[in-house]
């Protein structure tokens, strides 16, 4: 079975989320910061009449935080009854990925990202990391940059 995914980039790496989880995508305009929120909550935006929290995926995955630019995108996703915006570097492609093309993340892939991945796929010689959306937006504690995870 092939599903459609939206591909986006983050610090040079390509990630994928299922289109059926993505409500819509927009350019990043002003994000209103929310004081005393978690460090990787960029703030809130208004999207289609709803107040949506914005998760900065860079900080979430332990990358350096950069100011959003013209290529940055906000992916408004839905998971577990919640609507959350994901702030990413760019997002332009759609791709169909067959279910059996997604391999589980190997043990050799250490680091924070391993925990948030459903699996890894290879598209035309490009490595695409398929996100486990629920894990990404399920925030327990902020993880410091570069920390190694013990599973």
């Amino acid at each position: 079975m092939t599903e459609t995914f939206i591909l986006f980039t983050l610090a040079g790496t390509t990630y994928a989320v299922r289109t059926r989880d993505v409500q819509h995508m927009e350019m990043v305009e002003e994000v209103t910061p929310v004081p005393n929120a978690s460090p990787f909550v960029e703030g809130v935006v208004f999207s289609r009449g709803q107040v949506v929290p914005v998760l900065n995926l860079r900080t979430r995955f332990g990358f350096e935080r950069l100011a959003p630019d013209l290529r940055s995108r906000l992916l408004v996703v839905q998971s577990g009854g919640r609507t959350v915006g994901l702030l990413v570097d760019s997002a332009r492609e759609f791709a169909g990925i067959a279910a059996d093309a997604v391999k589980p993340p190997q043990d050799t892939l250490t680091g924070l990202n391993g925990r948030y991945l459903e699996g890894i796929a290879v598209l035309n010689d490009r490595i695409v990391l398929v996100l486990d959306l629920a894990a990404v937006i399920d925030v327990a504690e902020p993880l410091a940059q570069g920390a190694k995870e013990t599973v």
Partner: protein
Amino acid sequence: MPGAERETGRFSDAFLDDYFAECDEHLRAIRAASLRLDAGLDAGRLEPAAVEQIFRGCHSIKGLSGMVELGEAETLAHELESYLRTLHEGAHGITRPGVDVLVDAVMELERVIVARRDRAAIPDVSAIVARVRAIAAGGAAPHVPTAAAALPAAAGRRWQAVYVPTPAMLERGVNVNSIRERLQALGTIESAVPEVAEGGRLAFTFVVALSDAEPASAEWEPDGVTWTRLANVPPARAEAPEAPAPPAAARFVRVDLARLDDLMRIIGDLVVSRARLADSLERMERHVPAAEWRAAQEHRTALDRHVRDLRQGVMRVRLIPVGDVFDRMVFVVRDLAREYGKTVRLELHGKATEIDKLLIERMMDAVLHLVRNAVAHGLESPEVRQRAGKSREGTITLRASTVGDTALIDVEDDGQGIDAAAVAARARAAGVEVPDGALDADTLLELICAPGLSTRERADRGSGRGVGMGAVRAAVQEVGGTLTLETDPGRGTRFALQLPLTLAITEAIIATVGDRTFAIPQAGVSEVLEIDPAAVRQLENNEIVPYRQGTLPLLRLSRVFGVPEAPRRARLHVFVTGRGAAAVGIAVDRIVGQKEIVVRTFADRFIKVHGVAGATELGDGRVVLILDVNALAHAGEMRGVR
């Protein structure tokens, strides 16, 4: 949700929502009629119209419950119907125990239906059914005189109204039901007879006893009604006047509350668009011929008016009279009085006050709790009252009213008042800091709402749900309202709830802190001050400023939110929230203005931040956070600002 029922595939499953809604209407009518029956009994007579109404309601509920296969409700309704039939036919007189059983049974019936609605376990009704059977079978009761039927109309007051329907009128919405309702508003309908005349024409002949003078014939003509005054002869048989028409269900439409929420949201969008339009117009002034611009401004003003009317119209749709909730209280109080051995009279004022349905639902538990407290702890036992020179019967007063955009609900008792010293002692024992000296009402309220002080409530039946005073205040604050206390030892206590009528649109003050803009709901602010920064004093690690005859603790928003403060300003703007000893001043850099904002709440755990209640969009496209000043003030307290 509805319709996606468990897979029994029952035909009636698709009608469950209708069932619940219709039963709700019947139960409401039954409750109101029970109250009349009760009042009649107090006055020593039986109200036949009330009995009839309860009888019909139970009969309807029985039939409906049978159709949806809710056996417990069907059985209980059937027993009630039988009992009421004996009352109706005069086989039995009405007694106090009879009314008590009736009331208990109706409450149980409602519980059964609610259980089905909430998909909870259906309570066992065998006990209450037995009680109803017993009271129905019980021997002849002392005969209670029936309330005299309304006297035949005084001379000159009886009229005949003949209504002839036509297809054209039916299309307009004029039909025999609407005509009958209008007639009922004018007086009492003695009879209504349909007739087909010679030419096949249908006519309805109503005989009406008018309470006022003459009917305005000219007004009725276009609707096909002709009036004739009747001779003064009263009807041959002393017939009881026609029972009140069924609750005019035909005129009402059942609306899913979710759709009303959608409407409110769209109106919120409309308010924002309107604000944006106003901004654009302002900016355009220089570039457009004066006459054109003035015309545009006029249109905008008209639009403002329409949007305001529309908003009020939609809000009104969600309003229901508070009397429905109050009626329930009568039965609750009766139960509680029995439980605590007190004699209680409940006075209700402002039953017609209309409040948003959602607001009422959220507040119901809180008000119930206050009433329970009043009966359990506020009112003294009859003996104690008598010794104190008071009437043996205690009085609890429930008042509802609206003032502008605010609803006010009062719960008052004439009991013993709150013993401040005892509360203070208990608080100190629980480790809560209590200021020395006499406690003012606001501090007292703080103490009784503090967590951990509800030991007495835990001992009460049914308080296992943990509804303490703390929860009451939290519920009030959650909807943006305030709770105040007034108490007089030996004389009584009064809790006042002030609730914003609208959950979605509110007046707010816009302020800046550093480079951030925030909105503060007007309702939470009691005063706005301008203070000379030099007047701020340090007290341990807190700041205070002189205020009225005393001092006011100061909370700088810049510090609370970690926002860099603007360079030293000439004046500090301070919002005062709370009253008396609980007042706290919240300092901002600048107050920009006042605006009507649409409140968009958010609850996602990412952004559930203390002190932030939601967000709004100012007309110029900026998204601005809405502050919860109450929460901020208390946060300040927790850090020992006092």
